[in-house]
């Protein structure tokens, strides 16, 4: 049985009866058992429940009962998205044994369409990081070369899909956390428009910029998942009340006559040579398909990293204050502790990146520095949005490499947080402005490491964004991972 098929292909094979859900899920679990010791994409694997669900779905299909559109597709979920009855650890020792009392909206949407949640996948602690090395349970490794990082923070999502340990995954993207692992692991990852998908049940890190996003092998699969998880949710009043769109329909419309802006600030200095050359090839392939590509300058992008980390740290700092060992945390009694000592004892189990962000956040929000950092960061955000609004008057899409660099080795940048932050230069713009962006796998470097191309569209233009991503996907053939 081929575990390398796409989610869409899986659905049609199950419908045709050429494969059974139970058989596929069992094979997937075998695969996890075999490869995850090396990759470490999973924090929790829900084997028995997955097999039981698979049997139940097979039975439903056999007796011609109405079956959800996922037909028992095994999906992994980032471990900061709540799943009732299954641990949600955020890759933090603080929540090591936390079982959420309810399902996130996206989780219940997937379940109601008969997706099988095969397990919860690794991330940087509380999604704070770009490499998945800051997980308290150990790093995830890149399936293409296990000496390298898979990107992050949704590294478990990217790696589990690339390593054929599931058919698709949900991640969350605060500053590139879906797109970075998609690029480094050679899969597709979408950061949707702020407000397209409910964040109810996503453990908060930086509420004003983060979104849940699908990760899958193909653009079709991402569109398929988006159909299920997008839309208004009364539990999240930042979700938009837009009419439901079918993202799968007309996916192959093509891009003839479309205009694409090449973002100068994301394609110039500091971009790895092979990444730059892949980007140029992608641009010329899109031109061959009838698109017109023009350079476009967004000078606010130069300030985006400083603005992003100021805002993200500020919001993180307030969100983390709930981990006080009363509502969440370790199980030790309050007797004999003074208030502060009790809380700081529990927090001594936070990892270094979480502590850095708490300190930074508290600093940029403190009375003497608020105007100098936080307020200016918010103004940069407005400036980026204004420049994008102008750009989208002239072009339909924007393009850049997803990551300016190739995947790097595990441990290579871990002691230099600023250097790590700077690798997010091409991704944070979409979060600060709220617009959608997608990473499409496009090439392999001479050393066999994946290169992804990023495409942006204006807010709530996911349908058009998926069309250009689909067109780009069709211009390249990439190697398949060796099983």
């Amino acid at each position: 049985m081929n575990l390398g098929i796409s989610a869409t292909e899986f659905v049609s094979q199950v419908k045709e009866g050429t494969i059974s859900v139970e058989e596929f899920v069992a094979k997937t679990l075998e695969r996890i058992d075999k490869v995850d010791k090396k990759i470490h994409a999973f924090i929790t694997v829900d084997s028995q429940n997955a097999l039981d669900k698979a049997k139940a779905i097979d039975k439903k299909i056999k007796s011609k009962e109405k079956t959800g559109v996922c037909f028992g597709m095994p999906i992994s979920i980032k471990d900061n998205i709540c799943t009732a009855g299954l641990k949600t650890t955020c890759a933090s020792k603080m929540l090591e044994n936390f079982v959420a009392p309810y399902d996130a909206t996206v989780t219940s949407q997937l379940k109601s369409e008969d997706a099988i949640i095969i397990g919860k996948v690794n991330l940087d602690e509380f999604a704070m990081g770009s490499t998945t090395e800051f997980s308290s349970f150990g790093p995830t490794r890149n399936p293409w070369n296990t000496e390298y990082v898979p990107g992050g923070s949704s590294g478990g999502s990217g790696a589990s899909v690339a390593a054929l340990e599931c058919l698709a995954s949900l991640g969350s993207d605060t500053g590139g956390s879906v797109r970075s692992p998609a690029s480094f692991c050679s899969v597709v990852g979408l950061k949707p428009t702020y407000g397209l998908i409910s964040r109810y049940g996503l453990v908060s890190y930086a509420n004003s910029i983060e979104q849940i996003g699908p990760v899958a092998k193909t653009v079709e699969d991402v569109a398929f998942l988006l159909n299920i998880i997008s839309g208004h949710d009364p539990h999240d009043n930042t979700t938009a009340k837009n009419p439901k769109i079918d993202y799968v329909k007309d996916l192959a419309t093509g891009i003839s006559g479309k205009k694409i802006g090449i973002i100068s600030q994301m394609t110039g200095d500091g971009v790895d040579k092979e990444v730059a050359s892949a980007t140029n090839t992608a641009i010329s392939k899109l031109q061959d398909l009838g698109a017109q590509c023009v350079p476009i300058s967004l000078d606010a992008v130069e300030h985006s990293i400083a603005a992003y980390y100021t805002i993200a740290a500020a919001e993180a700092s307030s969100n983390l204050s709930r981990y006080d060992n009363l509502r969440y945390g370790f199980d030790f009694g309050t007797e004999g502790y003074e208030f502060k000592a009790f809380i700081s004892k529990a927090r001594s189990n936070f990892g270094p990146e979480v502590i850095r962000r708490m300190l930074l956040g508290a600093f940029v929000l403190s009375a003497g520095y608020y105007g100098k950092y936080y307020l200016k960061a918010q103004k940069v955000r407005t400036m980026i949005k204004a420049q994008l609004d102008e750009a989208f008057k002239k072009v339909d899409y924007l393009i850049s490499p997803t990551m300016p660099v190739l995947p790097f080795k595990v441990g290579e940048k871990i002691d230099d947080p600023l250097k790590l932050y700077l690798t997010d230069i091409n991704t944070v713009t979409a979060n600060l402005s709220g617009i959608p962006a997608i990473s499409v796998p496009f090439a392999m470097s001479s050393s066999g490491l994946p290169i992804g191309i990023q495409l942006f569209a204006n807010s709530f233009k996911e349908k058009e964004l998926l069309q250009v991503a689909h067109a780009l996907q069709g211009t390249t053939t990439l190697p398949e991972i060796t099983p």
Partner: protein
Amino acid sequence: MVEKKEIEHLADLVKVDLNEPEKYIKQVEQILNYFNKLDHVEFHSDDTLGIQIAKDDLRDDVNVPYQDSLIEHLKKDQNNFIRAPKMV
């Protein structure tokens, strides 16, 4: 220049004990120095983005009783009171 005292004070406020204060001070200082880039931005507007929510979109002001499952994780004593450490 960030003072060691300042970072230690912040650590106290966010209630974390820094096991390697020197390392954190150096890293936080380096990152804040980078954030100083924000001083050189020329702004043409003082606007900041906000999300407006219509009054009609707010939920009705009615009491929604909590479910017991939501407080399962809290530390409780035998009378079902939530236990917190001594404040003073």
